[in-house]
């Protein structure tokens, strides 16, 4: 291996790592606020790529049908919950939120699909569609059992992953898609070549991470989510609704996943079931951060990306084996350094 290959692999690894880092942040965010280990995050990544690919081809993406279906179920669940508590007056507002907004988003995407709009607009539509899906699924699947143990929530996550993979096949079909690169430019420094695409991905990730930092540090909603993460009951006592915090978290996390999908689309061909492996790589990064530390999770994710790039060079057949076996020494290290012995829930 010479320097240029090493440089190429590093570039490749950092690019992928930056994408996994976004995912790892989403996973840490969801876990700290809601205690949910969000296995289905990968499906959101895949949906985003496939949505953008659909828009590129000028046909309405499968996300529209999915969004409409999920919104109807969410509206039904919300109506039943409202009826049980006899809060009929609040129903119109709730239906507007749970049914109106998703239907509006779906309608706009459907209307815009054949128009061959510029890439930036299509990306925005993709982000909107996939982000809307997050809170809806939280409402249907997780909110009714928000107080369950981490383990029950995890099993539910796996079940949801199952269902979403199957639905992905139904709505998007079995063909894989790849979205065109945002830019073909590349530039040379010495004997090293940098692709603008890679730089764009890393920059986009960095900007998003910075935005998250500002959101959590400076904005009231961000602070509310942090408070919920630290102490759920305390946050509730000062007037932060846990369901609102959950829905907001899922919106944010879905947005991050959608970004991942958009960024990963030009790098690799994505199928309806590709998301799982991608999300698990984010998980390996997140676990390096103990599922609670954002900077460590992001660093871990970059490490995963590098590891993947270099192992695909040396032993490409065993790429996945190597990436997922790394979790064992990481866990061993965490197990030996963690003295915190908490009563299991």
């Amino acid at each position, binding site marked *: 291996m010479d320097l240029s290959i090493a440089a190429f692999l590093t570039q490749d690894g950092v690019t992928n790592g930056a994408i996994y880092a976004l995912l790892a942040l989403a996973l840490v965010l969801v876990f700290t606020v809601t205690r949910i*280990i969000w296995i289905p995050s990968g499906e959101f990544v895949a949906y985003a790529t496939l949505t953008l690919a659909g828009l590129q081809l000028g046909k309405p993406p499968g996300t529209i049908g999915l969004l409409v279906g999920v919104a109807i179920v969410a509206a039904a669940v919300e109506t039943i919950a409202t009826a049980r508590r006899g809060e009929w007056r609040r129903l119109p507002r709730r239906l507007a939120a749970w049914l109106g907004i998703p239907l509006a988003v779906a309608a706009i995407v459907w209307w815009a699909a054949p128009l061959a709009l510029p890439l930036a607009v299509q990306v925005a539509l993709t982000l909107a569609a996939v982000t809307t899906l997050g809170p809806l699924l939280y409402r249907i*699947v997780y909110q*009714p*059992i928000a107080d*369950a*143990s*981490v*383990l*029950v929530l*995890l*099993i*539910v996550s*796996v*079940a*949801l*992953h*199952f*269902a*979403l*993979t*199957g*639905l992905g*096949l*139904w709505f998007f079909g*079995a063909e894989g898609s790849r979205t065109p690169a945002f830019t073909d430019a590349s530039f040379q420094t010495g004997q090293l070549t940098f692709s603008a695409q890679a730089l764009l991905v890393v920059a986009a990730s960095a900007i998003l991470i910075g935005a998250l930092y500002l959101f959590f540090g400076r904005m009231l909603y961000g602070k509310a989510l942090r408070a919920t993460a630290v102490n759920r009951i305390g946050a509730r006592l000062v007037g932060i609704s846990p369901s609102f915090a959950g829905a907001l978290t899922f919106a944010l996390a879905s947005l991050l996943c959608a970004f991942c999908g958009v960024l990963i689309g030009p790098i690799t061909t994505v199928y309806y079931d590709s998301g799982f*492996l991608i999300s*698990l790589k984010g*998980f*390996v990064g997140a*676990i390096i951060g103990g*599922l609670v530390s954002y900077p460590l999770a992001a660093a871990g994710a970059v490490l995963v990306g590098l590891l993947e790039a270099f192992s695909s060079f040396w032993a490409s*057949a*065993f790429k*996945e*084996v190597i990436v*997922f*076996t790394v*979790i*064992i020494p990481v*866990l*061993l290290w*965490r*197990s030996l350094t*963690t003295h915190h*012995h*908490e*009563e*299991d*829930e």
Partner: protein
Amino acid sequence: MLVFVVALLAVPIVAPPFWVTLGNYIGLYSIVALGLVLLTGVAGQTSFGQAAFVGLGAYTTAYLTTRYGASPWLTLPVGLALTLVVALGLGFITLRMQGHYLPLATIAWGISLYFLFGNLEWLGGHTGMTGIPSLSLAGFDLKDERHFYVLIWGITLAALWATRNLLDSRPGRALRALKGGLEMAEAFGVNGARLKIIAFVYAALLACISGWLYAHLQRFINPTPFDLRQGIEYLFMAVVGGAGSVWGAIIGATLITVLKQMLQDVLPGILGRAGNFEIVVFGVLMILLLQFARNGVWPFVARLLPRRRPAPVPDAPPLPTRERTHDATRPLLEVKGARKAFGGLVAVNDLTFDIRNGEILGLIGPNGAGKSTTFALISGALPLTAGAILFRGESIGSHEPYKIARLGIGRTFQHVRLLPQMSVLDNVALGAYLRGTAGVARSALRLDRDEEARTRAVAAAQIARVGLGEHTFDDAGSLPLGKQRIVEIARALAADPSLLLLDEPAAGLRYLEKQALADLLRSLQREGMTILLVEHDMEFVMGLTDRLIVMDFGEKLAEGPPEAIQRDPLVVEAYLGGVA
């Protein structure tokens, strides 16, 4: 039970081959699900990687029989040994941490092993391995599926029997306490981390056996049936059937297998295209189940069956008690300059006092005085910052709770820590954990009955001693709070302690209950028990104790008989905020 076995036996004789095949798979899946009942339903840990252990068993035998012509009966122990090593390693790494690391690690391990199977040329890669020999038993070749059916279900029933035995035994009680009662169980000598690893290894070994059977049934293997998706389905089986009961494993395996078969036949017809629609149905069903019936199908079935009467407590000689040789000139427990600091906050500051043999000593003080911290220091729940605590002259200041329990110090909890779903008898028997020796293997094979009878006799005797004999077989959670506190005392007594630590035993009790408690403690004292009482309730303490220690702001304020303490101006000031 009888109906079940007869129905089982009838399948290979009367049913068409399709049902025999289905029955074979149900048996194979049941074996894996049984392990998950123990691991997930009972011990509260989750694994998505069981399919990988099945694969380990299958690939070990496939490789050794096809490559080296080894006898399948020899490859089984090899596979089990391999599984043991892997499960021990994974368990050691993950089970010391919080519950969600094990499932995540098993996901990663499940995927790694799948890709490993698929990419290793010498294991046949993604195309797999063929030509695996069939099993023969005592010269009889089990080529026919009907014959194999007998073997599979023989092993399934044996696994069911062993798992049931295990749950109804000394380690079983401890396993059942892991979910929601870990701290309590550890105070009675249960090593939680070790038991969790045992449960994980047990489940992995069952999965390995299932894989070994699978390889010789199919006589062809490839990586697909051992991927993560199958691992998840195994967990679904256990949860759907009802992971709290061994029967849940059989029901779950049957339901999921039959349902999957039906969905694969029916759904493409309805939906008009081919695809993996059964996973959507499975996912949705699973979500609904966990939202509305978290304990699975079995509780609904169990309600229809007649409730089994509890087995009467056998008339067995009690377990051996510890020798009580004590140097009468020395106090039983000595606290010397004990100090506990949480960062900058000193909760207990150079506290020194003794507990004399045979006395009832009260530790009182206003809120925040450091009583509970002192209690935690003596019981080993918190480590000392400085100073020493000696029990019979032996330093216990740095001991783990279970070592302190082993030396003969029994405790109760300020907030009642009983296992509400278990009977009073089982709860109290858990207190005698350290007095028994029966391990997992002995219990699973039912060789522990003599010791178990003696343990139950001890538990029943302690329940009678505290006056709750009529509630022996009731669920502990069904008793009122006052009686639950008494059950806690019976559990502590079952450990055969010479010092009893009671943390606010009278809190939340009504007047008559308090009187009954005081009578009980006095009668225990007459029988030679030494008691340390941390209490809030002045009236209760004044009438009962021989001596009192008063704490305030982490320090000892006064010490002496109750009458003297009541007149002590310092104590009055601490409680009433100064005398005008």
